[in-house]
């Protein structure tokens, strides 16, 4: 569970991005955050990851104030962040290595995650030998291998083509079903937000003190993209983003 109390944040010598912002994410919920570019949605994700410290207010995760990055909170970024000279398997092992997990167990865990993400035969390949979608899957495997309770995603699929993007969206749904994971997705893509976010937070212009909440309970069923409710909600989000952008 994530609680955001009276959060204020600004980068040094910049105006406030958040001002007494409050928010609550229950365990197992799936959120999407959307808003005009520069509104602070990525900043919010970095705050939740413990990578930025609030200027005022606090963030409490699982009952403990968040002071620094936690092993139970995983983060996936747009740009894979893979070491070019390490294999896919080696890249998945990185975080496990830092947690002092022994070589054999580590390799087995990494192999299993590559398998789950459909990369079983690519373990020995280097990032440059993989496609963009495969690289992002390696990055997802690396994060999930650390067994997080919360998965934060910052525009994870925005540099991928439409088909790859959809298949990875489906994959995220499948994975978080299995893992009883809380997910928070930041995206500028309306269809992505509506497909993956059971609750959608539409942010306006900073400084942000509150955001519009759209309930989207049908999200995450694989046939949702073809349904009328999907398009209606996309329209609704589009309108809200448009309003908040001006």
């Amino acid at each position, binding site marked *: 569970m994530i609680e955001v109390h009276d959060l204020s944040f600004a980068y040094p010598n910049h105006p406030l991005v958040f001002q007494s912002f409050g928010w609550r994410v229950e365990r197992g919920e799936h959120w999407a955050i959307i808003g005009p570019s520069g509104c602070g949605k990525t900043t919010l994700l970095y705050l939740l990851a413990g990578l930025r410290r609030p200027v005022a207010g606090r963030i409490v995760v699982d009952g403990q104030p968040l002071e620094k990055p936690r092993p139970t909170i995983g983060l996936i970024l747009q740009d894979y962040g893979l*070491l070019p000279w390490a294999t896919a398997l080696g890249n998945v092992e990185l975080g496990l290595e*830092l947690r002092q997990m022994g070589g054999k167990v580590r390799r087995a865990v990494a192999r299993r995650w590559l398998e789950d993400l459909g990369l079983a035969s690519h373990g020995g390949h*280097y990032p*440059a*030998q993989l*496609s*963009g979608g495969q690289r992002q899957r390696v990055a997802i495997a690396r994060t999930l291998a*650390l067994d997080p309770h919360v998965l934060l995603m910052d525009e994870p699929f925005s540099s991928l083509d439409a088909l790859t993007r959809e298949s990875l969206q489906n994959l995220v749904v499948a994975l978080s079903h299995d893992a009883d994971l809380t997910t928070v997705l930041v995206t500028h893509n309306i269809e992505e937000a509506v497909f993956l976010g059971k609750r959608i937070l539409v942010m306006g212009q900073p400084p942000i003190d509150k955001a519009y909440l759209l309930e989207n309970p049908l999200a995450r069923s694989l046939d949702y993209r073809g349904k009328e409710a999907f398009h209606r909600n996309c329209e609704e989000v589009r309108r809200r983003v448009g309003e908040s952008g001006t």
Partner: protein
Amino acid sequence: MKTAELGSLSLSPAAQESNLDAASYLKGRRRWKVLAIATGVAVVSLLVAATIGSVGIPLPAIVRMLLARLPFLSIVPDWPTAYEAIVFQIRLPRVILAAMVGGSLAVSGATYQGIFRNPLADPYLIGVASGAAFGATLAFLLPFDVPFLGLGIVQIAAFVGALAVVVAVYSLARVGGSTPMTTLLLAGVAIGSLFWAASAFLMIAAGDKLRVVYIWLLGGFSQGYWSGILAILPYLVVGLAVTIFYARPMNVMQLDEDQARQLGVDVERLKLILVAAASLMTAAAVSVSGIIGFVGLVVPHAVRLVWGPDHRFLLPMSALVGSAFLVWADTVSRVILAPGELPVGILTAFCGAPFFLYLLRQKKRAVF
């Protein structure tokens, strides 16, 4: 495999520019093999370099002299006693010191390049050289010498000066609990110039001592001595151990600081530990050898270009290659103008630069 078009999808500039020949990244058992060979080359370099000089001493004699010093072997001396003095008092201390300084500079260069994620980083980046130069110049101007544990006041002043400047740079660059690398770099450049200017001023004030000071600054081992070796040994051993111990987190740091923190690296602590280890190694090396350029910049790059950038391999390999390189550079520098000597720093730049350019053209592999 042609990867240029895939490369453009990737974040890291390394992958973007890389014309990757993945198979050439060294892995597993082959790494140990290469390290073993390099160790052999470094040791043989030491021994062979000790044979060279105004009096040529055959290699077998040196090997026998060394074996004779081992407690459980009885070898009857069949060499002139003068040889023993030359080998143990002059040649060996000198080549060993050169090897240690070369190793220290290369490892700390690799470490700085790793934490700054900047290919232009070298061991002198954040003020070690300017601090050492200032300390040494000041000491040269003193009318007296205060020997301490067999070291002269110049060595001690250089060491203290180097560390003082690094500490000042690091504290100045620290803003509220974190040390942005760009600020650290800029603070290093600014304070560095300040101390270089101060040293230059002192050198002009030095009058007839100018030449001695200048030659010291260019670096060399004309005073190879066991006390110097003993003085820098702990720094090399501890520095090497600490940097290799943190090789994995250093690898992860190559992603970017946020990603590394997310994966579980305590980035601020790591930076502090590694800057401290690398700076201590460099300060120790500089205090006994003067400011030898290029080794710390070029050796890690050469290793990276040939064998790939994994710090677990890069650090020990840089130590070995740096050692062998400086041993040979120093040998040439004392033979080429015999009986005079060329400051080894001039030579390292003369040989190092063209070789590095050659590697750069040959490999065309971006590893940063």
